[in-house]
């Protein structure tokens, strides 16, 4: 052969057996070192069906962020859509919505203790007493009752609709149903629905203020075929389970008002309605002016750190990059910025 094919052959073989790309190593900036006083858990939902949910740990003293702390500690991924967290008796409960499970961790070491499975679409978990938890199911699973000793689902309380945030008070379990106009009241002794409270469409979050009044935030909705229903903030008497005050809120975005939170004294409310809004509980009007305006931000996480009196706000940006976390003091002055995981959905403060 006259051709100088050997040269090309050589190149082809080089490609065949040599080349591959060096991948960047993505290791956490800081190892997981938990502050014995506690810290902040940042819940990053991750993208739906990507199983890239992560748990970040933020040390408020050193201001260092340990990213992806669950996987780093347990050598496995957390799962798909980390929705919410709660803790009890030294254990942390991570509700992983689209993995249809709850991961139980040692809250002081983050090491995995158990996995509670058998859910359809778990969203939030509340502890009742010393060995029972209630878990809301978004897609028609009602409310599941979990035995915390055995980590088994022991009962399903049928509730139709998309069950969202829950709250236990006075032996009553309040369940928001975000595709309905009501909050269900379940008797925690019989685990039977005993009452329902009519609220504006789309109740999604709720909390108790310092006077033991229940505040429920409704998102409103866009009506198919035109028009919309307003969102609302409702104040509810927990003795009679009746609505005392109702403030309509104009929806500023697709999701409307969501994620009702309060300060440490439980007398100032905060929520997301595209921007961040604030409402002292004794005011008779809800301000139309945002407390922290959104400049095309996609605020998706909000909570109040009662230890430092700072408000943490997560911006999910385009929902496919790491979120930006802003810390504000009570005067809305920006105190710090850092990056967390993809789609930060909530902050969970854990202090001993």
């Amino acid at each position: 052969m006259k051709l100088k094919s050997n040269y090309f052959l050589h190149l082809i073989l080089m490609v065949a057996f040599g080349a591959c790309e060096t991948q960047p190593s993505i290791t956490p900036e800081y190892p997981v070192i938990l502050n014995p006083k506690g810290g902040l858990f940042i819940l990053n939902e991750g993208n739906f069906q990507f199983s890239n949910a992560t748990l970040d740990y933020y040390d408020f003293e050193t201001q260092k962020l340990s990213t992806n702390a669950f996987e780093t500690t347990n050598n496995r991924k957390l799962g798909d859509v980390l929705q919410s967290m709660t803790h009890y008796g030294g254990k942390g409960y991570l509700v992983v919505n689209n993995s249809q499970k709850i991961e139980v961790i040692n809250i002081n070491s983050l090491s995995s203790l158990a996995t509670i499975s058998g859910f359809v679409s778990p969203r939030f978990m509340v502890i009742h007493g010393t060995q029972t938890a209630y878990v809301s199911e978004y897609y028609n699973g009602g409310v599941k009752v979990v035995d915390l000793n055995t980590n088994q689902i022991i009962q399903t309380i049928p509730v139709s609709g998309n069950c969202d945030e829950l709250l236990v008070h006075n032996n009553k379990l309040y369940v928001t149903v975000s595709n309905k106009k009501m909050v269900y009241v379940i008797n925690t002794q019989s685990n039977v629905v005993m009452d329902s409270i009519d609220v504006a469409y789309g109740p999604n979050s709720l909390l108790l203020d310092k006077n033991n009044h229940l505040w429920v935030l409704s998102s409103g909705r866009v009506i198919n075929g035109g028009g919309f229903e307003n969102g609302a903030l409702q104040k509810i008497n927990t003795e009679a389970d009746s609505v005392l005050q109702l403030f309509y809120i104009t929806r500023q975005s697709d999701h409307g008002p969501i994620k009702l939170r309060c300060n440490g004294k439980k007398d100032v409310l905060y929520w997301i309605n595209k921007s961040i809004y604030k409402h002292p509980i004794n005011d008779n009007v809800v301000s139309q002016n945002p407390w922290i305006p959104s400049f095309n931000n996609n605020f998706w996480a909000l909570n109040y750190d009662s230890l430092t009196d700072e408000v943490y706000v997560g911006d999910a940006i385009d929902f496919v990059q790491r979120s930006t976390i802003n810390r504000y003091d009570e005067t809305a002055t920006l105190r710090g910025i850092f990056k967390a995981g993809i789609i930060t959905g909530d902050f969970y403060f854990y202090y001993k």
Partner: protein
Amino acid sequence: MKKVLAIIGLFWLSCSQLTAQILPADTVKYLPDFTARGQRFESFNTGVKMVQTDSLVKLIAIHDNIAQLLSYNSQVFVRAYGPNQIATTSFRGAGAQHTAVLWNGVNLQNSLLGQTDLSLLPAGFMDDISVYYGGNSALYGAGAIGGAIMLNNSSAFNKKGASYQIGMGSFGLIQHRLALTYGTKKIYIKARAYHQSAQNNIEYHNYTLAEKPLQNLAHAQQKSNGLMLETGYKINAKQEINLRYWYGFTDRNIPPTIGMAVNNAYQIDEANRLGLEWKRVAFKTRWIGRAAFVDEYLNYNDPTTYNSGISKSKTLVGELENTTQINSKTALNIGVNYTGNFAQSSGYKQHASRHSLAAFVSVNNHWSKKIKTTVNFRQDFVDDNFQPFTAGVGADYKLNRYLNITAQVNKSFRLPTLNDLYWVTGNPNLLPEKGYAQELGLTAKRTTEHAYIYTQLNMFNRQISNWILWQPYGGSWTPQNLLQVWSRGIEWNTRYTYCYNKFMLSLRGDVSYLLSTNQKANVQNDATVGKQLIYIPRLTYQTWLTFSYSNAYLAINQTYTGYRFTSSDNTSFVDDYLLLNVFVGKRFKFKKVGFDTKIHINNILNSEYQVLPSRPMPMRNFLFSLGVTI
């Protein structure tokens, strides 16, 4: 240009000699302006990199769908959502909606989605599968910003035959194929049918569970049926008509991604496609008329989340084109196209429709024996609006016997999809996307008595502005003209074939390195400027090593796909993967019956890989195939 090379598909079974007329395919084609089945896409595309699937790969891929075929036999990145699940394409760093898929000249891009699910299209239904790298809306029509895939059927006058094939593979795959051809000088009938069912219960490690146990993919069953009926009639010496009907049905369960416990969703796709083609070929002029009706039905249903929807799309196409050889140096192609899209979807407030009219002109000039150029122009008029005027210019310069330099520039566009415009939260004010691309190529080839070597280097550069993205900026999920995407890269293709009597050795290497980055920040905190788009590998390469002797072959294929970012700020990615596939086959005759046997071992290295995050792909798997031909 009478000296252009008519490169014919590689007839691997009759590779007894190499001449300028019989060369391996998968090379840039220089076809004369006039060929019997010539379409304007083939003859008015000077400077364009075009790769035709060679006959051996077509034989290997007889049981595959187009997505599978392209994943190991092209430089198109195929985004597969799982085994036999949805698969779309990315050409040179563009999006799935920037690929035009043309079936005998009729665009199959779904008008609601702007893309084509290539996993629904069986490769065995096509007689010619060609990939055109780089967009050129002026030639292929709206939507072709990244590139075009041409799926063509050929007529079967004077051909007769019947064949049956059965393919049995891992994960419960069974496929039956039947093909009947009857043709005289005047008329032909061709019928192809297939049925496939598969469990797709592939294994994967569940990395969200302790100890990462090996699990079987659940709820991934798939079954599909298809029918391709063709008939043609020679009206006289100059005219013929071809009528083709293509039916496809696929019912698949959607498996859970790794980390999901269960998924109950399923999807049904059904398509009826009818194409009529009339040709009149005279001494210096050729007319082609096309009419098509495409009816697609998609039903996605998730009983758990009630997240379900039905969409129906109907498309009507009429096209008339004329090619005239004005003189020995110049050929002219002019034509008009009407495309009507009619859609309904559970996500729309009302039915949606769109009427597009387009006029196009292309001119080929052979300035000398060394220089050939093509210009393409097209103007689309959609509903009441003029769309961006598009144009393409290509040139080919023959430096010497061995070397050619090619260049191509084009301006292309894509219309917003009907979903973009008419979804409940859609945006009727969207602008079309515009693409500006430039390309430079250098090819070298040499043929000797027994060997053929070919190498081609292409560099491309492309800007896409007004890139449409669904984002919640401003508070609601709605599509907006958000991104400005700059793609640039280099591709290198090499072929070497050595033939001696009945023995053939063939080596092939295709490498691509590209960057495709967003150039525009949209909001505060946006960290995506200058970052690679998600799901677009920078480095990919494929190699083929093929031996054949007489009627037997052994082919070893290696496909490498570099890591792909999964976050727009490039902070997370899915791992790269290297797949090694081995294909062995033999044909033999017993009395008058032909037999065709093959064994495929795919992913022989047992790589555990994902194309898209948390969607497992098959590890080592097998396919046995037996065919009978009379």
